[in-house]
């Protein structure tokens, strides 16, 4: 690949490919996260159907309720791109609104997860009950932890914007936050299909 551009002396973050270092770094990170969630998903699938006692997925999973939360997370991705588009065109009023709403939907998803987890514990499924309990809670728990991290990141961006410390010149930072957020969403698409939908 020919390096067509000298390193931009005015913007130290743009490299010889013309891409921003930070955006490239986030994509490399997301590639690595594919392996992380891949290993957790592989573990879940290796143990699927092999619990020797205790509740199994078909007895305990609430598909309708989880479908709603999956839909909520999908829609939060839409709000995220709307937030980025607003910030890029300099409309910080709507940028703040969309950022806050994205975080709210994300928090709602986490709320659904917490409700689901406590409900399952009442129904007799804990981390220690059986292989399903262990692998389900760890896989979805780590996904939920990633969503929580994303919500904190989004709220931080929103807060900076509220204080006037985030503007259109920071659109790349919003974009990178968005990449993380969408990734967390697509991981849920996979998890939702493999845990909840597939019999």
């Amino acid at each position, binding site marked *: 690949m020919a390096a067509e551009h000298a390193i931009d002396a005015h913007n130290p973050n743009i490299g010889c490919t013309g891409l921003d270092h930070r955006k490239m770094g986030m994509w490399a990170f997301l*590639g690595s996260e594919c*392996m992380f969630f*891949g290993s957790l998903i*592989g573990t879940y699938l290796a*143990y699927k159907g092999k619990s020797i006692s205790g509740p199994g997925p078909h007895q305990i999973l609430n598909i309708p309720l989880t479908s709603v939360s999956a839909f909520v997370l999908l829609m939060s991705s839409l709000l995220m791109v709307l937030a980025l588009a607003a910030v*890029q065109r300099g409309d910080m009023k709507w940028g703040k609104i969309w950022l806050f709403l994205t975080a709210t939907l994300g928090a709602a998803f986490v709320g659904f997860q917490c409700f689901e987890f406590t409900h399952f514990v009442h129904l007799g499924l804990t981390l220690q009950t059986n292989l399903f309990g262990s692998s389900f809670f760890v896989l979805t728990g780590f996904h939920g932890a990633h969503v929580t991290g994303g919500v904190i990141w989004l709220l931080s961006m929103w807060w900076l914007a509220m204080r006037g410390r985030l503007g259109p010149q920071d659109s790349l930072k919003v974009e990178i936050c968005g990449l993380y957020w969408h990734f967390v969403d697509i991981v849920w*698409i996979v998890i939702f*299909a493999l845990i909840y939908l597939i019999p």
Partner: protein
Amino acid sequence: MESSHSAQTAGAAHQEHASVHTYLRVAVVLAILTAIEIGALYVPGLPPHILVTLIIIFGTFKFALVVAFFMHLRYDSKLLTALFVGPLMIATLIILAIMALFGSYLLLPRT
């Protein structure tokens, strides 16, 4: 700083940005696909292997839509696509290998 105007490698897509309209359409498609997937669960007598195939295909398609449009990969440098898709392929292969090594019921359906 206009990140959307950073230099693209030659031959990249001419359209630099999806419009809000495109995003909304993608969101609608995502919602419809999800609704069909969940609806399929309640179709009585649907053979399991058809259901599983449908779920996997729809899930893959939703995944690809979010990556291509919401994450903007369709309009960005091919380098970023390579950075993500390579590891994704390796992760997928390893999941399949683990499933095979552990005799996962998904690969070898129970009768």
